[in-house]
């Protein structure tokens, strides 16, 4: 029995659920990031004296902050899709147990859920990339497509490890702590809003090894067309390891949880 068709059929389940609840996600996934762009990029950016040497190669603060905000959004959506929904499927609604009573295996369940998370991230990223195009923040069409594709990797690099963590939790309290102590600091200090050089040296180094900085820098290179291949390759490998390792851990964690 091959696994892929089963995963695909289960993916259909998440799409059906989303068809009924999508209205509740419009503001968070589409409007909030655009409001941030308007407030931080356009309006606050109007007060920033743009110097490409100081802004990681960006010609304006808007060009600098938009890739950062997009990568930050992909991370936040990944958290959103793999925290409470996973807890719900394991504990509150027990959807996973229902799935497991069919020929589906644990790996199918986890992979389908993660794929759906990536699709959600992709849809938001696509809207974001298209809406931002008239602002002149993408260097070229291939650059914009690159920006979009990078979000899939960034999204999975966060979704998979968070999924693994969520599958081990007994109650949702852990999410609050992770949101406040991990998600917020990553969003605010990983080079999305200001160049890392503005941080004290020790914090700068810590920021450089965080996964969000890898995603922000990669997105920014694609957006501005300022590729530096060694750095880009490092980021790709780093995020790829997070995604693959996270997925493996996630399947294992779910197996332990559901099939003791």
């Amino acid at each position, binding site marked *: 029995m091959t696994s892929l068709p089963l995963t695909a059929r289960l993916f259909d389940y998440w799409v059906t659920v989303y068809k009924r609840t999508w209205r509740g996600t419009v503001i968070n996934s589409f409007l909030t990031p655009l409001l941030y762009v308007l407030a931080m990029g356009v309006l606050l950016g*109007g*007060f920033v004296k743009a110097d490409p040497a100081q802004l990681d190669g960006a010609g304006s603060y808007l060009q600098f902050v938009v890739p950062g905000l997009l990568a930050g959004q992909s991370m936040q959506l990944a958290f959103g899709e793999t925290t409470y929904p996973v807890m719900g499927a394991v504990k509150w609604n027990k959807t996973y147990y229902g799935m497991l009573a069919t020929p589906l295996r644990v790996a199918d369940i986890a992979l389908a859920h993660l794929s759906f998370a990536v699709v959600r991230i992709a849809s938001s990223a696509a809207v974001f990339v298209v809406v931002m195009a008239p602002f002149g923040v993408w260097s070229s069409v291939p650059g914009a497509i690159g920006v979009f594709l990078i979000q899939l990797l960034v999204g999975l690099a966060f979704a998979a490890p968070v999924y693994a963590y969520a599958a081990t939790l007994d109650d949702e309290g852990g999410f609050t702590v992770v949101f406040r*102590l991990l998600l917020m600091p990553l969003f605010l200090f990983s080079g999305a809003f200001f160049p890392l050089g503005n941080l004290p040296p020790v914090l700068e180094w810590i920021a450089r090894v965080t996964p969000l900085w890898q995603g922000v820098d990669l997105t920014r290179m694609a957006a501005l067309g300022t590729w530096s291949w060694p750095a880009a390759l490092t980021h790709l490998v780093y995020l790829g390891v997070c995604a693959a390792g996270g997925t493996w851990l996630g399947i294992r964690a779910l197996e332990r949880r559901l099939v003791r």
Partner: protein
Amino acid sequence: MSVASGALTRDTGRQLSRAGATGVLIYRNYLVYRRGWVYFLTGFLEPVFYLLSIGVGVGKLVTGFEVGGHTVPYADYVAPGMLAASAMNGAVFDTTFNVFFRLKYVKLYDQILATPRTTADVARGEISWALLRGGIYAAAFLLVMAALGMVHSWWAVLALPATLLIGFAFAGICMALTTWMRSWQDFEYITLGVMPLFLFSGTFFPVSTFPDWLRWVVECTPLYRGVVLCRELTTGEVSWASAVSVVYLVVMGLIGTRIVARRLDALLLT
């Protein structure tokens, strides 16, 4: 016989003053939070992170803005904005998500109303709790500001009561709105209201960037009043115009509290 009928009427139970009744609900919430002190503690961090990231990090790219005729560094400009915004966010969170949960799932208010307490006691208790919690966060934030040298006047001491006013104004209105909520999906509307307030109320940049008509609209919103009030206090640029913000926030809070009590009457006592 007379004993039974006496116990069943609402106003012959053990009498508590308004303050006493409010205190009971605050104590109840304290008992709940005592087990979740981590959540209480980490709630304070968010505005501090924003201050350090936007204020200090982005501040190195922005020269600074004028407040009352004097130019202040960008971090000092953002800090009072974050103070006011976090007072709003805290009040909104406490009186929407938490109240909805207690109203719909825990049925806490039905239980309280089964005792000699009234809906007004519930409204006062929940709003006071939101203020108390917000006040503790605000005091801690002010200490951080002082430690980072972002406080320029003794007027800043009054920024603490100012944040309580902001909390009062938002807590009432938001708790009232919560009574109309049908499901968790409806909370997107709260985000829809709070997010633009947070980003465009002069928190991160002056409203002078807006066209005139829009500037007028923003100046009439509650968070903007709170932000300028806090900024006037921490920079020491207080004037009679500051009183406008104070009156605005007090009136908004009083109206909110009144609506909450009426809505709870309609929801739980009919």
